[in-house]
C-alpha cells in the first residue's frame, strides 16, 4: 500500500495536468478502464472550476466566446489552482493572468473588464454596512469640511482603466442589443457599490478616481482633492459617492 500522502500528491498532479495519466495506486477493475474512471474526477475538477470562473466573469466569457474562454480558463486553472476551499475566493488573480495571456492580446481591455467583474463579485460578498445620506455632510460647518474623513462602504471598490470598461460591461450585460464601443469612448473609472442587496456600477466623473482612492486610504477630504485638476467638480463627486450608497460614516477632524 502506498502512503496516503504519495497518493494525494500524484492525484493532485494528475488531476490538473493537461495530459491524462492515471496514478499507479488506482486499482484495476474488470470492465470500464482505469482511464475512464479517473477521468470522472478530472472532469469534475475542471468543469466545476470553469463553471466558477464563468459565474464570476460572464462578460469576459462573452467577449472571447465560449470555446476560447473554456480553453483559457483551463490554462488559468492549471497555473493557478484554488488555494481556498471557499470557492467564492477563486478568481482574484484572473485579471492579472489575462494581462500575460498572449492569445488574448488583441483585446487589451480584457484584464480591466475582468477587474470590474471581480469587483462586482467581491462587493456581493463584502461586509454589510448602512450608507448615510449627503445631508450629514451638509450639516457640517464649512470650516470642518477640509478635515472631514469619509468612511467608505466595505463593498465600495474603484476600477480605473484607460478603456471604456463601464460601457463595455453595460452593453454586454444590461443592453438588449450589444452596442459597438468605439475607441472615442476613452478611459472610464468605475465605482462598484452594494448599498444593500444589489451590486451597482457607476461611471465616475474625470479626476474622481484619484480623489476617492485617497478617501478610501483614510485621508481627509481637503487633502484628497488637493491634487485634482482645476475644473474638478467636487459637488458632483460627492453627489455620486453618497448617491451610490458608498459612504457609511463621517469623521470630523484630523485623525489622532
Amino acid at each position, binding site marked *: 500500500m502506498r502512503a496516503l500522502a504519495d497518493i494525494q500528491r500524484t492525484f493532485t498532479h494528475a*488531476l490538473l495536468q493537461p495530459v491524462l495519466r492515471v496514478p499507479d495506486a488506482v*486499482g484495476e*477493475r474488470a*470492465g470500464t478502464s482505469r482511464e475512464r*474512471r479517473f477521468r470522472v474526477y478530472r472532469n469534475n*475538477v475542471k468543469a*466545476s472550476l470553469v463553471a466558477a470562473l464563468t459565474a464570476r466573469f460572464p462578460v469576459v466569457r462573452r467577449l472571447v466566446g465560449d470555446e476560447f474562454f473554456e480553453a483559457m480558463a483551463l490554462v488559468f486553472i492549471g497555473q493557478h489552482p*484554488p488555494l481556498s*476551499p471557499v470557492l467564492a475566493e477563486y478568481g482574484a488573480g484572473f485579471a492579472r493572468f489575462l494581462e500575460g495571456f498572449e492569445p488574448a492580446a488583441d483585446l487589451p481591455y480584457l484584464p480591466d473588464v475582468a477587474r470590474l467583474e471581480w469587483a462586482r463579485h467581491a462587493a456581493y460578498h463584502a461586509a454589510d454596512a448602512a450608507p448615510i445620506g449627503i445631508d450629514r455632510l451638509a450639516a457640517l460647518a464649512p470650516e470642518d469640511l477640509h478635515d472631514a474623513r469619509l468612511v467608505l462602504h466595505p463593498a465600495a471598490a474603484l476600477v480605473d482603466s484607460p478603456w471604456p470598461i463601464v460601457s463595455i460591461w453595460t452593453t454586454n450585460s444590461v443592453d438588449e442589443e450589444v452596442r459597438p464601443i468605439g475607441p472615442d469612448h476613452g478611459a472610464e473609472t468605475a465605482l462598484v457599490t452594494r448599498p444593500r442587496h444589489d451590486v451597482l456600477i457607476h461611471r465616475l466623473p474625470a479626476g474622481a478616481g484619484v480623489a476617492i482612492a485617497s478617501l478610501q486610504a483614510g485621508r481627509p477630504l481637503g487633502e484628497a482633492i488637493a491634487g485634482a485638476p482645476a475644473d474638478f467638480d467636487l459637488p458632483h463627486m460627492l453627489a455620486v459617492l453618497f448617491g451610490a450608497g458608498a459612504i457609511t460614516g463621517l469623521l470630523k477632524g484630523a485623525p489622532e
Partner: protein
Amino acid sequence: MTADRSPRAGAGLKPEHQRHILDAQPDIGWFEVHAENYMGAGGPPHSFLERIRALYPLSLHGVGLSIGSAGGMTPGHLARLKTVADRYEPFVVSEHLAWSTHEGVFLNDLLPLPYDEATLALVTRHVDEVQSVLGRRILIENPSTYLRFEGEEMAETEFLRTLARQSGCGLLLDINNVVVSAANLGFDPAAYLAAFPVEHVGEIHLAGHAVLHDGAAPGGERLLVDTHDRAVSDEVWDLHRHLIGRLGPLPTLIEWDADVPAWPVLEAEVARAQSVLRQDGVSRARAA
C-alpha cells in the same frame, strides 16, 4: 402531536428558490446549505439565510474541510466552519469521507481515500479535532466513488463503522452515492446497506445521477456519475423505502445542485420523500 417531532424530509437550499421560499413559506421540514457558501463577510447570501433560518431548521453540510488529507485539514478552515455553525445554529453538521486539498491546493471535488488502517487512524484523528473544536457530534457521509486502490484492507462499511465507534461521530448515509459506487465498483447496493452501521445514521441524502454508456470500448460498461442534476432514480427510491421500513423515519434530504429545476419540481421530490417517512410512521402505529 408526536408527528411534529418525527424526522422530516428537507431540501438543499438553492439561491434560485430563496425569494419564493421566503414569500410562500412552503411546508418543508428543513433546509440544508453548503457551509462554504456562507464564509463570506456579508451580502445577500447571509441576509437570505438569516431570514430562512428564522423560519426553518437548518442542516450545515461542509464540502471543504478535506478530512482525509494526509497533510492535515485545511488550516483555518475549521475555525471558519465554527463561525458559520455558531451563527446559524444548525440541528446537524456534516462532512465527507474524502479529501479535496493537497499542500494548499483545493481541487473542488470529493476525492477517494484508500480504506486501510493508516487512513482510518488519520480520519479518526481529524474527526476528533472537528468535533472538539465545534463542540458537537458531526455526521460523516459515505462518498460516491469511481475507483478503488491497490491493497486496501477493509470495506467502506467497515471503515465507517470503526470510524463512528472510535470518534463517536454519526453517519450521513447517501443512498444515491451507494447506488453510484455499487454500479461503478460492481457490488450489490442492498448488501452494502445490509452491512452499513445503520445505528449511527443521523441523516439520509437522496439525489439524481447520470448514466454514461461506453459501448464502443472493449469491455466497456455503464458508469454512473453523481451529478445531482436530475430527479432521484427509482432504484434509489426503492432502497430508501426499504431502509426507512427497516429503521423508521430519518431526516431525508433531496439534493439538486445543477440544472436546478423550478421550485415545484424540487418540492414534489421532497413531498415524495416525506410520504415515505409518513408511510412508515403509519405502518408502525398500526403494528403497535
